[in-house]
């Protein structure tokens, strides 16, 4: 009898230990549902699948097309110096660049920052180009880069690609110290024209200058009402200071906030896609500009904002006559309902 009791006790202990281990490692799906955290399947089936029309994807995947429709809808984006679509145009690249000394060469179908060449200046004597790293390249090197891009070296699946040459963006000084050797960009998720959630991605030494969160970049959730930092996260865990520059991340405040939100919101009318991520950069002189759109925005933004996406999305789904609202009204609605700080 004693043996049986001790056996019972042992098994119950083992079960509770196991339960503790599982609870320590895995979140309860019920909790996650209650908090409205959105999972990959939910996003794919109910948001991307339902609100993003397949035939509109090229508008987003091809940066040249994105730029064209942005120009049509008076959405600000970095000025296009020129584009190349065929190999025979490569010879005329120096005419295309003309007197520009600062520009950026990009593949139209690139992803993850691949194949982007940033030219900061020109050597007056030799006419060589100076890269952002300080290294110089000749015109021939530049042509080779463009040829490789056209042949699909940087595009997904190696499809033939186009090349965009854009004016260089001068980052707003407010961000100095927040990002380590990289491009701080603002990602706003826009659902049916309403800005829903926002974050900034700051590159770190660990992420090698890239803004990829799973490679160690810092994500900073941004309050929709004020543009102030809500929470900063690296490797899924909250942090307070930038790991490389030691800057207080929670003191971050995005300038031109109203403009940023209105720009993001207007991307819906421009692209027709219901659920998009808009990547916005802030230029020192020209203010917020649309860098690119993403029809399959990631879910890590929830971690940066310490909030689930679903309650926000469902509130918007519950609205009626959404199409009647203007950009300003949609932004006002988002600020009113999705803000974290009092004004």
């Amino acid at each position, binding site marked *: 009898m004693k043996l049986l009791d001790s056996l019972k006790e042992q098994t119950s202990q083992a079960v509770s230990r196991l339960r503790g281990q599982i609870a320590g*490692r*895995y*979140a*309860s*799906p019920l*909790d*996650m549902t*209650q*908090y*409205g*955290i959105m*999972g*990959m*399947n*939910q996003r794919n*089936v109910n948001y991307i699948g*339902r609100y993003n029309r397949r035939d509109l994807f090229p508008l987003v995947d091809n940066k040249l097309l994105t730029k064209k429709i942005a120009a049509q*809808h*008076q959405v600000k984006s970095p000025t296009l110096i020129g584009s190349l679509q065929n190999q025979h145009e490569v010879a005329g690249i120096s005419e295309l660049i003309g007197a520009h000394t600062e520009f950026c060469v990009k593949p139209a179908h690139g992803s*993850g920052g*691949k194949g982007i060449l940033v030219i900061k200046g020109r050597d007056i004597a030799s006419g060589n180009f100076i890269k952002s790293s300080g290294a110089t390249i000749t015109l021939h090197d530049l042509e080779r880069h463009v040829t490789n891009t056209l*042949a699909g*070296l940087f595009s997904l*699946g*190696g499809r033939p690609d186009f090349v965009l040459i854009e004016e260089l963006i001068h980052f707003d000084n407010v961000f100095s110290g927040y990002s380590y050797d990289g491009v701080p960009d603002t990602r706003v998720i826009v659902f049916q024209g309403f800005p829903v959630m926002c974050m900034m991605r700051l590159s770190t030494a660990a992420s090698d200058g890239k803004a990829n969160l799973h*490679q160690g970049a810092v994500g900073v*959730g941004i*309050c929709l009402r004020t543009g*102030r930092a*809500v*929470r900063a996260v690296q490797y*899924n*865990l*909250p942090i307070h200071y930038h790991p490389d520059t030691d800057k207080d991340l929670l003191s971050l405040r995005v300038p031109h906030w109203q403009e940023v939100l209105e720009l993001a919101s*207007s991307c819906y009318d421009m692209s027709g896609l219901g659920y998009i991520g808009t990547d916005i950069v802030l230029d020192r002189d020209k203010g917020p500009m649309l860098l690119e759109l993403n029809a399959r925005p990631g879910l890590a933004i*929830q*971690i940066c904002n*310490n*909030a*689930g996406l679903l*309650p*926000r999305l*469902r*509130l918007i789904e*519950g*609205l*009626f*006559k959404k199409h*009647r*609202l*203007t*950009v*300003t*009204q949609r932004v*006002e*609605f988002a600020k*009113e*309902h999705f803000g*974290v*700080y009092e004004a």
Partner: protein
Amino acid sequence: MVSRGVFYFVTAALFLVGLCLIAYQHINFEVPFIPGQERQLWTVEAKIEFDAQLNEPVTVAFALPAVQPGYSQVKQSTSSLGYGVNYVDRLGAKYVEWTRRSASGAQLLFYRSEFLADPEFNGSSMKVPPLRQSVEPEPYATAIREIAEDGYSHSADPFSLTVQVIRALTVENESNSLLKAQYRPTELVVKILESAGVQAREVGVLTLEDGRRNRSLTERVAVFSGSKYQIFDPLSGVSGMRSNELIWTDSGASVLDVAGGRNARVSFSMLKNGVPSTQAGNLRAEINRAAGAELLSFSINSLPIEEQSLFKNILLLPVGVLIVVFLRIIVGIKTSGTFMPVLIAMAFLQTSLTVGLIGFVAIVGAGLVVRSWLSHLNLLLVARISAVIIVVICIIGSVSLFTYKAGLTEGLKVTFFPMIILSWTIERMSILWEEEGYKEVFKQGGGSLFVALCAYLAMDSAFIQNLTFNFLGLQLVLLSLVLVMGNYTGFRLSELKRFKPLAAQIKSYRNGDEKESEHHRLKRELRELKADPHNTLHRWLHKAPYDGSARADTNTAQEPPADPAAPSPAADAEAKNSASKEH
């Protein structure tokens, strides 16, 4: 978008129809669910090809399988358009004879027979052959006589004599190489034995392996001692028959004789099926009855054997696919390439698991090393992939060669790997390595292998093989399951881990100046909105409750009044105008 109702209806219908089909087959034809309750039924198909000579009568004689212990022939049939068919018995040897007055061009004849593996069956058509007088020319006669005499003095009975003779023939010397140049191995052994006064004859043996095609007979020697006989392999000297070996010709005559044709060849394909024990009994009872009626009513079984063995693998694929869908959607394992793991698992079925795993890791590893060098060359994609394909083929070739030389025939099986798929895997993993680092490569590579392993374990099980091959209805059930999973919007298991810190944070902290958790507040607001859509929206937009008195205010606002009843077309147009102006 198809409405949910239709979707669920279609899915349920597929599921039910599938189940009904399975139940129908199970009840009506006693097709078993568990493969253990069955007997093996081998279907062997011989394909005879030859080129007919113009304007000449054609006679094709094809030896019928021998009667032997262990296998009972259940039924036989031929397929031959335009030929007369006759089963003949010529000097104790049974033939099927096809005849035609004239034919031209390539000819194709089929003979098909079913054998029930039956340990109780004891009949045999093997007859002791008469002892022939040797009439070999010199110098072969002397060489044969020498080996025979030497073997005779070192042996006790015909069987040990055979072993001695075969061993003597393995020695490399002048007279042996002379003999081997003149005679086939079996022919030589028979001649030596006959010169020693032992009855022996050549037999053709077919090795039965499930789903194999383009097989030919292997030659063996039957050695007689009185009325008993044993089968010997003329090269290794191994005696006896394995359980999966079937004697086809036991009369010493050739398996195929074609008059009026050239380039004749015969190839065999075979397939294993399970039949329930009860049906096996019926089959045995019907052996002597005229064949013709289809005994087993599986639809797949009416196809030619070659296609059947193809189908056997194809019908397994959905099981693997289902597992991939499950592991990706519900569990959230990352794999490199969506269905690459299933194809790898199919390759594992052909090789064996250990050989497959070692082969896969070796090939991909070596491929990655070569590919990292290729990436320095800055090649274009198509050329790069092509280079990787050639490298993969070289790796597979050298692996087979080295392992074979080292005496491991298992290594030859790496050729079953799908090379193009492997090349793409290498390419993808190499890009992943450059972009995301080696960790991600191991994660995805390990994930792919894990999924492949799960798919392999499922597809390798005799139970599932039996189900997929015998029950076509199962495919519909699988399809409905895939459809249901495609509609799953819940969390993946991996996300429970990924969002664990987030869930803990939301639970314990409140953001910024929030007085109430956001998810509570937004849910309450959604309830308010649902309860009274018009007023709530109006209040939210204009920060004042909607009623008649607020009308004056709303007119001055930029938004036209939200009319709770039916908005007039004019109001609609106005709204659109104001919206477009705003953009």
